């Protein structure tokens, strides 16, 4: 490109804007308590690992990470398993009301969590799902399904019908055609849906707080939010915990950023 300086400036600004606030958190996580609330703030940490020790051992952070991995992981798997056939059917069926089904799904995606929280709580109580991981996974699946179905539907749409017909003629049942031919081709779309679902479940706070009160089962956002004691604001511990909690996602994003973007370009955005 000819406008190299503009580009460099853009890169610089984008990275700076995205990272700086978090960098401050990283710096804070290596400070000791007296530096955290120092006035004026000091830039350089004294390299104390107190907050990490406290986050890991006193607040048992890894235990929350484990819970979050379980919840977000199973949400992702179940949501995809359920969303894929639905999206496939929506993409292939010749139904006049299809746009409305998708529109309806989008509506569901818009339900404010507050609207459905109470009844969901009651359902889970009847099923015995309170304070269990699956009790949280069920509503998560339902809340992430619309987006997953939406992405996958548009994705399946892009795949040539011919391929599927070829598979049918080669002797596949509809299901076989789906998982032997269409699914491998829709990998980027699946991937996108997966990462969006995963990040949703990883970050969700409202339902997690409501459904999980047993500290043995609480997920990461709840765990970190509960670091806060009655009167003490443990910035250092929160910072250290955030750094640890964000690392897996950063690695995930770094590894798969190409996949995410490719998945999106073939799917959700075309119109």
């Amino acid at each position, binding site marked *: 490109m000819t406008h190299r300086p503009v580009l460099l400036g853009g890169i610089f600004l984008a990275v700076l804007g995205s990272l700086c606030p978090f960098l401050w958190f990283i710096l804070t996580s290596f400070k000791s308590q007296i530096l955290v609330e120092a006035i004026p703030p000091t830039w350089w940490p004294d390299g104390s690992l107190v907050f990490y020790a406290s986050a890991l051992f006193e607040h048992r952070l890894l235990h929350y990470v484990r819970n979050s991995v379980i919840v977000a992981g199973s949400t992702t798997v179940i949501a995809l398993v359920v969303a894929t056939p*639905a999206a496939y059917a929506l993409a292939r069926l010749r139904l006049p009301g299809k746009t409305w089904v998708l529109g309806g799904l989008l509506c569901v995606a*818009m339900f404010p969590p507050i609207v459905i929280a109470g*009844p969901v709580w009651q359902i889970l109580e009847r099923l015995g799902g309170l304070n269990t991981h699956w009790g949280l996974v069920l509503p998560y699946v339902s809340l992430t399904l619309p987006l997953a179905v939406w992405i996958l539907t548009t994705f399946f*749409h892009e795949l040539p019908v011919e391929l599927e017909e070829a598979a049918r003629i080669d002797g596949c049942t509809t299901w076989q055609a789906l998982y032997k031919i269409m699914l491998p081709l829709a990998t980027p779309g699946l991937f996108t849906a997966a990462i969006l679902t995963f990040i949703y479940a*990883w970050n969700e706070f409202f339902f997690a707080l409501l459904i999980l009160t047993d500290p043995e089962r609480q997920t990461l956002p709840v765990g970190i*939010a509960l670091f806060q004691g009655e009167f003490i604001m443990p910035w250092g511990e929160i910072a250290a915990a*955030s750094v640890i909690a964000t690392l897996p996602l950063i690695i995930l994003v770094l590894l798969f*950023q190409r996949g995410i973007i490719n998945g999106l370009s073939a799917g959700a*955005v075309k*119109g």
Partner: protein
Amino acid sequence: MAFPALTFVAVFSLYPAMDSFLLSLYSDFPGPERSFVGFGHYAELLQDPVAHQAFIVTLGFVLLSTTLELLMGTGIALVVHERFKGRGWVRAAVLIPWAIPTVVASQMWRFLLNDQYGAINAILFGDRVDAYVPWLADPWMAFGAIILADVWKTSSFAGLLVLAGLQVIPEETYDAARVDGATAWQRFRHITLPLLKPALLTALLFRTIDAFRVFDLVFVMTQGGPGDATQVIQFYGYKTLFTEGRVGYGTTISVTVFVAMAILSLFYVRTVGSKLLQRESA
């Protein structure tokens, strides 16, 4: 094939939503036995100045944050669409804010915006501590701070959607424009932007839906204050429903928000979404 998905949605979204809607038709007082009041709560909502204010705050938040997010997102997308060394790292870097749980991100911004030990004051004023600004104390600046945090957190998501849109624009289109003598700005204005419209609209829709439901940020950063200046409608609904226990009125607020959003997105689905699905016969 869609049956399992529809079951899930029906049990954990539709049924609860219907249930909530029914709740909104019953009175909150007096006593444990609730009486049917029809659309009484909805009439009350029309008269409620606090709700009006919350609605205006929400609307302002939605308009400003989505606009800024689309602008920033487009900027980010244009940058990381270019080919350069280390692009993967830059892309990962801009996606980091999106991967941080909102609860944590909001705490972080509260920390950054602190009037004494906040990094923003330190960057702006250095050691001149007496010049430090209590950002969240001023109604307008607190409102701005909420938007700032939201823009930071989700611009990269908007950027992601826009980037995906950029990638389907064929390189030849630019070559043609360059042959026609278009400048970089003209190419952006007359080629990129029009071709990006679907992607921008998608991003706009998803961001609008999310912005309407903003809750965590306010919950953590300002609790709606000062003086209700940052009280968005969802937070008001939460307070009414969960803190005050006015189930009927609280759900009324949330149901109203939902209906407003539903109308908005059905409009969208009809204009953009149907186009998305009508190419099948090709």
